[in-house]
């Protein structure tokens, strides 16, 4: 399979604080990669480096600069100002910014494509509504439309399953499986249980990145990479967590 993105011994961080060290990662077309790891472990920093909003301190990302593939991005929903005066259809169109020069106009073909996507996601009836009138699940669909309208080769989702009910979560992963046939997908999540049952491979990020080419994580792996997560089981297992004995 064709490589679409490669990180080589990458170090990244902010000002004097290094958050990630020695990260190596290859993303191929049709990959479906889940990224897990503790808070402050560097998941968001890794995404920012891949998205190009922060520059790596050391190492390189291939392909470079303008040859970089088109990346669709779904940010964390709580970073959005949902009182902003903008209707749904405009939010979807804003996903085409990477295709437009600064004075570029948005033509009827662009608008038709936006309508088509909104119809697929079942939000066409909300087209003229302001984003403030939408529920969490509807808002996620709008941002998903925005993320894929430019036909990206790589789709990155930052915790798409927070602030939505489990009903939408199921639908979301169904949509992602469908999209995966023509684009690589990277999902960041702290809901390890859900992520493992949907993705093809997993990367654990905690100061560095450990790649597992399967969606099964063993307890040993988690211990070795010092990446504490919740219990993973198949099926329903009644359980109770007690305090440690002193």
């Amino acid at each position, binding site marked *: 399979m064709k490589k679409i993105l490669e990180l080589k011994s990458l170090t990244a961080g902010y000002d004097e604080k290094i958050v990630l060290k020695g990260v190596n990662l290859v993303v191929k077309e049709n990959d479906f990669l889940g990224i897990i790891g503790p808070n402050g472990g560097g998941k968001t920093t890794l995404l920012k480096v891949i*998205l190009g*909003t922060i520059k790596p301190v050391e190492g390189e990302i291939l392909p470079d600069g303008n040859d970089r593939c088109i990346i669709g*991005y779904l*940010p964390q929903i709580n970073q*959005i*100002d949902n009182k902003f005066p903008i209707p749904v259809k405009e*939010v979807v169109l804003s996903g085409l910014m990477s295709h437009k020069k600064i004075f570029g106009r948005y033509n009827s073909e662009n608008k038709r494509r936006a309508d088509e996507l909104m119809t697929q996601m079942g939000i066409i009836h909300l087209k003229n509504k302001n984003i403030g009138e939408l529920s969490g699940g509807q808002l996620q669909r709008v941002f998903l439309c925005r993320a894929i309208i430019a036909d990206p080769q790589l789709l990155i989702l930052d915790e798409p399953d927070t602030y939505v009910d489990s009903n939408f979560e199921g639908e979301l992963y169904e949509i992602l499986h469908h999209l995966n046939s023509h684009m690589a997908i990277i999902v960041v999540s702290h809901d390890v249980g859900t992520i493992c049952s949907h993705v093809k491979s997993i990367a654990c990020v905690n100061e560095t990145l450990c790649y597992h080419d399967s969606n099964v994580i063993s307890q040993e792996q988690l211990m070795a990479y010092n990446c504490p997560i919740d219990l993973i089981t198949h099926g329903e297992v009644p359980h109770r967590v007690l305090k440690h004995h002193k």
Partner: protein
Amino acid sequence: MNELIELFQYNFFLNAVGAAILASISCGIIGSYIVARRIVFISGGITHASFGGIGLAWYLGLNPVFGAAVFGVLSALGIEWISKKTDVRQDSVIGILWAFGMALGILFIYMTPGYAPNLMSFLFGNILTVGVLDLYLLLGLCVFTIAVFFFLLRPILFVAFDEEFARTQKAPVQFLNYLLISLVALAIVLNIRVVGIILVISFLTIPQTIANMFTNDFKKMIFGSIAFGFLGSFIGLLVSYRINAPSGATIIFSFVILFVIAKLVQLVMISVRRKNLA
């Protein structure tokens, strides 16, 4: 009514109406941007920082509008630049700039020999003494602002809505932010002549807030703000002439009354809609 028609024969009154129209257009567009992007406090900081420029220009015997424009744009660019540094508390910096500009302005005016009769008109504005030069400057600003928003409306809107996403799409985020914050500064400085330093921020926020009650569409918000801005400033202008009070105060006063009326209309509309649903 006759008295009103008579008023239109006076040059000063025509100038004032022209200023009201131009101020409504420039403040309607820029104010919608300020309200949507939630940079009201930044705009307040720019307004007061520009008073330092007024004082310095006064001291050097230059045109105060020129001094205010230089200080306003420089402080606006400074704030935008500082907001990119993650380790700086932006609002504290704005607070310092706010007070420093005022202090500098007062110091320079105090050091200037002779009486400073126009100081009040900078603090509170006087639409009835607006001159031809002020009108040309405002007209130039309006033309430029309209052109920028006509050609760049979508990029401006998209970047203001979600800057982080725009950055991932390689949009010219920095260029747009610097351009827009400079426009904000120029709109503030040129409208100081009309409503004054202390009140200009309400010209940039009250008509927008009223328009925002009836629409959530940025474009309609701009047109609504221009309409409410003109209505309020025209009423304020008449009252200012009638009772010989500073125009800035009467204009803002009529804005607030419009705001209260609009709020009542909105409440009635909501209850009517509820009844229809029930």
